[in-house]
């Protein structure tokens, strides 16, 4: 269960006299602050800082802790990611530390001109004196704190548990933290730092590992696997197996136990619409629609034909008139007259007249007959070739609208295939994965191919000028190189344009006349358009904590351990795993007692709080005067005496 942040501003700051110390547990993951003597810290938050810009005003603001997206939408976070003051488990960025302390004291309700309480703050084991002194300086100078004490969080937790009887005064504490894991032996209630050991693996590394594995296994959904999501998954579902290899074998064999432990995570998915075979009435309805379409086409053709017939009738009338005129005009003048009016030989005109008559009278009749008539009687095919063309056109579109449609569809398919082929060649490059990822890789490869081409041009063409000297640019022709380069780049894209234009034309025509035609979406080749992420099958959450690096247990006689795991915290199975591991190392038959801290998360703070509440606390803390007078050497050797607890 994840750790919850508490950041409400406290109102009772003024009720505490200046003798009450403030206790701070400054961890790489979470920051806890509260009053000495209490059992719960007052303010808890994630130890990170963001400095985004406010979208409306443009000023840079500071936000401490983890905030949900609801609040963050007011800010422009592109230039500022969350930053931590820690490098591994040591504080090094004191500007960020200052922001954090500002926020913490503010939430604790601090007011007045300085923080007038002694402060107990936690640090890591073996904290470098540089970090320690900078922290002390920050507290004394900026916040006006009267006295400061440093302690190790794991030790506080151990002492707290010891006080409550969970462990003895001799023992070893194992503290897996956010970025590191420590083991600290205790002798007679005091920690032996010389014997302690640190491994640089912590909860952060585990979460990161999980995140990377998931991203690799499901590259299509990689955007879902954020660090926070991986952390959530880890806290909820992961466990530590007592023996990794045998556990893995169980999963490999697919035993029932393994099945129970497997967790599935289903992503939202819309199934593609199923192709139901059309029912009777569907078919009938579609047939009716098609019939109607055919009918409409026929009517359109009819209308066109009748308008054409009207035209022809008009021509007929004019020709009649011409013929009459011819009769009236003299024989000699006929050629000239005819050439004026632009019609053919008189005889031909006459023949045409007859046919025109018959044609006009039969215009309302069967379309076939009319065209036949024209064909039979017409010697003037050559002279009036357009007539035939018109009739053929008319015939096709009026008789067989469906046939026309089929032809169009076939053409469309052809052109579409050609275009898609070209696209596929472009994007697929040499990668023949067939995965969805290939699209991305292909595009990247294509880009780099073009880029490579440009580089090649630049280097070769520009190079072979002058013997060893770079005289590129001396001649005007040299600059044509750039034209060449950019042209190369463009040519690539312009070639399929003709095909695409054809495609566009065909598809628009088809859309007009075909009721069942659907425009093929310009999606990635190989994917149905508009499909949401598909079913996400299993994510097996069988986890091993790969603390494959064995934790070294130093200082062998103590064989009692107390585990205070804060970040790996509710991981079930840690205790058993430790027991197994230690049993392997220790001589056979020795007693092993592994104990888990009462509350792995808060015990450190509680221990610190109890320590600070003790009357002798001030003896352990150092004041500003001490800090400046005694110097760095003293600060290096400074340790608090834990046995007062």
């Amino acid at each position, binding site marked *: 269960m994840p750790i919850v942040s508490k950041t409400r501003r406290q109102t009772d700051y003024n009720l505490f006299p200046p003798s009450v110390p403030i206790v701070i547990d400054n961890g790489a993951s979470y920051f806890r602050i509260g009053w000495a003597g209490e059992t719960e810290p007052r303010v808890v938050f994630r130890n990170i800082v963001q400095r985004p810009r406010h979208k409306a005003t443009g000023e840079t603001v500071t936000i401490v802790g983890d*905030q949900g997206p609801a609040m963050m939408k007011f800010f422009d976070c592109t230039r500022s990611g969350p930053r931590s003051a820690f490098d591994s488990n040591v504080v090094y960025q004191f500007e960020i530390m200052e922001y954090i302390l500002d926020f913490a004291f503010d939430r604790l309700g601090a007011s007045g001109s300085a923080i007038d309480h002694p402060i107990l703050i936690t640090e890591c084991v073996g904290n470098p004196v540089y970090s320690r002194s900078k922290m002390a300086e920050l507290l004394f100078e900026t916040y006006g704190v009267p006295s400061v004490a440093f302690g190790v969080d794991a030790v506080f937790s151990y002492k707290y548990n010891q006080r409550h009887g969970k462990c003895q005064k001799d023992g070893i504490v194992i503290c897996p933290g956010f970025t590191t894991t420590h083991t600290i032996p205790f002798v007679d209630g005091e920690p032996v730092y010389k014997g302690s050991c640190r491994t640089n693996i912590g909860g952060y590394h585990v979460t990161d590992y999980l995140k990377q594995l998931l991203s690799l296994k499901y590259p299509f959904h990689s955007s879902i696997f954020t660090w926070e999501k991986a952390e959530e998954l880890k806290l909820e579902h992961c466990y530590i197996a007592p023996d990794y*290899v045998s556990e893995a074998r169980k999963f490999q064999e697919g035993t029932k136990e393994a099945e129970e432990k497997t967790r599935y995570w289903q992503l939202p998915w819309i199934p593609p619409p199923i192709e139901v075979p059309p029912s009777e009435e569907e078919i009938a309805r579609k047939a009716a629609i098609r019939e109607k379409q055919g009918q409409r086409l026929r009517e359109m053709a009819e209308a066109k034909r009748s308008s054409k017939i009207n035209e022809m009738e008009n021509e007929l009338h004019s020709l009649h008139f011409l013929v009459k005129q011819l009769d009236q005009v003299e024989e000699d003048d006929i050629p000239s007259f005819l050439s004026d009016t632009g019609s053919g030989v008189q005889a031909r005109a006459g023949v045409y007249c007859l046919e025109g008559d018959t044609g006009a009278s039969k215009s309302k009749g069967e379309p076939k007959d009319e065209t036949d008539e024209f064909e039979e009687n017409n010697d003037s095919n050559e002279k009036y070739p357009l007539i035939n063309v018109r009739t053929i056109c008319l015939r096709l579109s009026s008789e067989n609208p469906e046939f026309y449609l089929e032809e169009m569809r076939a053409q469309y398919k052809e052109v579409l295939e050609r275009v898609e082929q070209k696209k596929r060649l472009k994007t697929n490059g040499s990668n023949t994965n067939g995965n969805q990822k290939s699209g991305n890789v292909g595009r990247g490869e294509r880009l780099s191919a073009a880029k490579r081409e440009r580089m090649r041009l630049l280097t070769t063409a520009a190079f072979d000028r002058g013997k060893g000297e770079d005289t590129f640019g001396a001649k005007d022709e040299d600059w044509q190189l750039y034209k060449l380069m950019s042209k190369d780049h463009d040519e690539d894209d312009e070639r399929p344009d003709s095909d695409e234009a054809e495609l566009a034309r065909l598809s628009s025509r088809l859309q007009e006349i075909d009721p069942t035609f659907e425009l093929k979406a310009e999606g990635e080749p190989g994917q149905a358009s508009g499909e949401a992420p598909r079913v996400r099958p299993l994510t097996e959450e069988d986890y091993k904590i790969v603390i494959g690096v064995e934790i070294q247990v130093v200082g062998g006689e103590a064989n009692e351990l107390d585990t205070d795991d804060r970040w790996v915290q509710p991981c079930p199975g840690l205790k058993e795993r430790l027991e197994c591991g230690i049993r392997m190392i220790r001589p056979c038959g020795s007693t092993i007692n592994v104990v888990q801290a009462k509350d792995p998360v808060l015990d450190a703070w509680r221990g610190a709080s109890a320590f600070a509440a003790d009357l002798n606390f001030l003896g352990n803390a150092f004041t500003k005067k001490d800090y400046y007078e005694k110097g760095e050497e003293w600060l290096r050797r400074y340790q608090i005496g834990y046995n007062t607890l």
Partner: protein
Amino acid sequence: MEAELAEADIVVPMHLSFKKTQAYEKYPKGQSRGRWKHLKQILQADLDPSSFYINIESPPSTQPCKRICDVTGFEAPYVDPRTNLRYANAHVFKTLRSLSTHQVHHYLSIRNAAPLLK
């Protein structure tokens, strides 16, 4: 400041009464890079032999390395000669061979086994 933002009160106020010098005075804009020493530099500067931080660090484990399959997490007795990835059985091997170079490199780098020059 929008109404709900002000109510949520998540922004650190610019001026705090209990501070002697405010943050914006101390850290003028545009100077944050390169101001603070990283841990490595801190440790290098700290040459005193009694300094604990470096001494405490544990040496690498003397136990032999557990051979775990890179893709599935099972026990992996075999190694692919071409990519140097570990795999558990023939089925996994098939998927291994279909991975892109980028993925292979990623798997290896998780294990700290990625070659330095691609």
